[in-house]
């Protein structure tokens, strides 16, 4: 897991004026017929993004203090109040920054702001538990039940995720479970059946379904994402309805994101 900011390159905006090359401390920028950043060399210091005047280089991810974050969050407070909205901690995996988030959460509660966190469930319970008193909602992703398949694809132990589910339920946490529907990975019969089994075992009667989409592909290219290209087509409406029916026939209520 990489915590550093990403350097995004918008090739269509680049004028090849080489300001970035001058400031890059590690010589990672190569200007030529196919201008690019040598991602192996790049240390993500972001100096190039400051030097770039064309908008071709952008740093994604900034370091903020708790006060700075709160200053931004409070600007939209009136909108949270009228829309029933609030602040959602998302990622990456926000629980990796549990200490920081705890401080922000405390501030949010001081200002009566509704709070939510999106997690993959693979967190350290001891780190996560202190957040609970300050969270109004938890979105918990369920992907793959089988231990081996989970390990191979996502690199963690699915048992830890399942045990975190239990702990949250035990603590009466305001948790809502979500299943990302990823073609070829989470939607095969075997995994879906296992998911249904887990949900039933734990007495969960409602889930959110998040269909895979490919809207992030343009961004992946800009940051030379090391993630594998799934090379999948999003599900069509009929397929999505099918998943919905499958869960509902098992008496599990669904909310499908379209």
């Amino acid at each position: 897991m990489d915590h550093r900011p990403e350097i995004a390159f918008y090739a269509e905006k680049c004028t090849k004026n080489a300001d970035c090359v001058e400031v890059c401390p590690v010589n990672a920028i190569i200007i030529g017929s196919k201008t690019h950043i040598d991602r192996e060399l790049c240390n993500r210091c972001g100096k190039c993004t400051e030097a770039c005047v064309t908008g071709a280089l952008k740093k994604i991810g900034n370091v903020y203090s708790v006060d700075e974050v709160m200053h931004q969050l409070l600007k939209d407070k009136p909108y949270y109040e009228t829309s029933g909205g609030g602040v959602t901690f998302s990622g990456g995996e926000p629980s990796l920054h549990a200490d920081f988030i705890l401080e922000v959460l405390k501030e949010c509660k001081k200002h009566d702001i509704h709070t939510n966190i999106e997690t993959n469930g693979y967190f350290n319970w001891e780190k996560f538990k202190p957040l609970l008193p300050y969270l109004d909602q938890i979105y918990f992703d369920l992907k793959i039940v089988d231990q081996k398949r989970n390990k191979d694809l996502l690199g963690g132990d699915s048992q830890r995720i399942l045990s975190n589910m239990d702990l949250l339920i035990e603590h009466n946490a305001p948790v809502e479970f979500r299943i990302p529907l990823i073609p070829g990975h989470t939607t095969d019969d075997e995994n879906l059946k296992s998911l249904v089994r887990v949900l039933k075992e734990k007495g969960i009667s409602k889930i959110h379904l998040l269909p895979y989409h490919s809207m992030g592909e343009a961004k992946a290219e800009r940051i030379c994402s090391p993630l594998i290209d799934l090379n999948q087509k999003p599900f069509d409406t009929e397929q999505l309805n099918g998943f919905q029916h499958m869960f509902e026939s098992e008496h599990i209520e669904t909310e499908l994101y379209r």
Partner: protein
Amino acid sequence: METTAKATATIISPRLNRLKEKVLNYPPSICPERALLVTKYFKQKENGKKPMVIQKAEALAYILDQKTVRIYEDELIVGTTTSKRVAGPIFPELHGLPVMEDLFSFSDRKINPLKIHKHEKTKLLTEVVPFWLTRFLGYKAMNGLDLIKFVTDQLNPKFYLINETGGIGHLIPDHERVLERGLDGIKEDIRVKLNEAGLSESARNQYEAMIISCDGIINYAHKYAEKAEGLAKTENDPGRKAELLTIAKNLKHAPQKPAETFHQAIQVVWLMHTAVFIEGLDNGISFGRMDQYLYPFYRRDLINGTITKDKAKELIGCLGIKSSEIIPVFSSKISECHGGFLSGQAITLAGTDEEGNDLTNELTFMMLELMDEVRLRQPNYHARIHDGSPKPYIDKIMSNLVKGVNSPALYNDKVIISSLKKAGYSDADSNAYATLGCVELLSAGKTFGSTDAALVNIPICLEMALNEGRLFGDLMRKGTETKPVDDFKNIDEVKAAFKTQLQFVIDRLVKVLEPIEIANRDFHPTPLTSVVTQGCIESGKDVTSGGAIYNFSGVQGVGVTDVGDSLYAIDQLVFQKKKIKLSELVNALKTNFKGKEKLRMELHNLPKFGNDMEDVDALSRWVTDTYYDSFNGKMNTRGGKFVAGFYSTTTHYSFGKMTGALPNGREKGEPFSSGIAPMNGADVLGPTAMFNSITALDFERAHNGVNVNAKFDTATLKGEHGKMILESLLLTYFKKGGMQVQLNVLDTEMLKDAKIHPEKYPNLLVRVSGYSAYFNDLSPAMKDEIINRSCLNT
């Protein structure tokens, strides 16, 4: 500023559907009839001996008597401003001459082509043009060198665009008085004043002219009644025959006598509307609070059992479609400034009574339904919103907006009422305010506000401030002398120089407007408009002489945020970071960044207004405050204050063309930001950040109104949830001090355009799946997917 016509809505009434199709399929045209008739009247030598106000009244009566009477199939509300279905008349005595300047190119021009027959052109050229060449309003307002200077200046407006040389218009007739008293009753009121002892000559003439205008309209109504009777005689369909007889009966009775039925009331409103158009100026004549003044008629008919809800709605729909028959005739130069056949015929919905109680009623809802069902260019529906607005009302507005009706525009009572009080309106009149034209604010039937007197190019004042009072590349000084750039020691000194230049331009504008106001008074009094404007009968004065209860001149500022962002850029690069000397920056501006593309991009990519950044927004706020201050103590010749507004129609393009490069990275000749909006594409942090920047400005001093546009794609606003989000967004923006907002929900065509011209829609937010993304950040394939999705949605 106008909603686009879309053919997607379902129409409940087949009649409205048929009427709408007829209007949509008629090519926008020019009708020479009014021009020929008015010329014929003024050519009569003996007429010229009469007082001007009498001549004007007689000319109007003559036009109304002689113009072609048209009653179209299916119509229940009749009366036209021209002899063609969808057309504009020409006002040769006003702006008519500059319009006829491009008589030959109307049909082929790129912006808003207008159809006119060859023989009609010839007639205009031989019978109309020669006569008015030395008699039109602008000519009479000025003489000699002043006139030449003025005409050349206004052919390509640089510093300001003056609209008053084309007459004033921009009012809401006091329909209530005509409905209640009838023209006979009003004539009695006038006669009482006429018989008062010690009446001045001018008041006597005014009253006599008012009576002539009233009689002219009574005759106009009777001519239509006769026509309807004639048509009824030959009509075979018994249903239509009965309708024609009702039309005849209505017009024989009203507006001469007080209206008795809902149908009559709507007919009176439309007839008066067309007559005021024909008299004064074909622009900005609005209907005011129609759901209010029609309501007593509706209630009465409903209780009597003489009308049904559907019938009432159909009648309102008939009037709405008639308003889309009206086309303003602008020269191509002016079309560049006011594109899209702009003729703001506004209807104000709901709001409060004089004490602040909510007034939403059944008619309000009918109009909300009609804007969805009919979806035509006009009228402009404006919905008043306040803390006590009922939930179903807000709900219906939101469902219209999420469906892509793009109507109504929303007006925030809290800010507007407070603003109007500050402008000098009584508490009661402020509470009962109405909207006019595009976004203007006033008291219906009481204000003669010249709300569109002029528009000012604000950024050109910065250009002059950076060049000792000269435009870049000019030797002659068009502004006033301010310091050379090398002497500016900090941003405050730059701001001071800008302020001096702006004040110089405003002082000159007010001075140039004076003879034009006087020419309107002396050569274009409008006795009919004065009959329907409170204060004029009481005072014996024409509206153009200050007879109305409230008098103002509204002057719009254009390019506010361009200047705010430019000041920020100068401060950052020159004074804070000291990266460049001001003189170097100005030299780059003078050469339009030639060889300095890098500098331009650096300027362009600096933080901009629209992202909720306090230090950036503060400078735009300073520009608006300075603009308000520049009108302090300025009065027009009607005894009214000059008031500021912020909307640009399409002058942000035309002024942009005349203005040099700016420190915000905008190149020479490029458009400014529209209205009070952020620089195109500069707001990149989403709608709440944009709204927060906008509410950083003080709108309580924008007495003339402002325009704020927000764009969304259909999917963002989908379903009940989308509706709730939109409601929250807009109402919170109002709570934070927003004055007005108008929504654009983008349809498929616009999204396709956004793919081809990304630069036009850089901040377009689209719904992806559970979240929103910037359209331009998507790959071409993804863009296509969004476009396809929007096709499926409609």
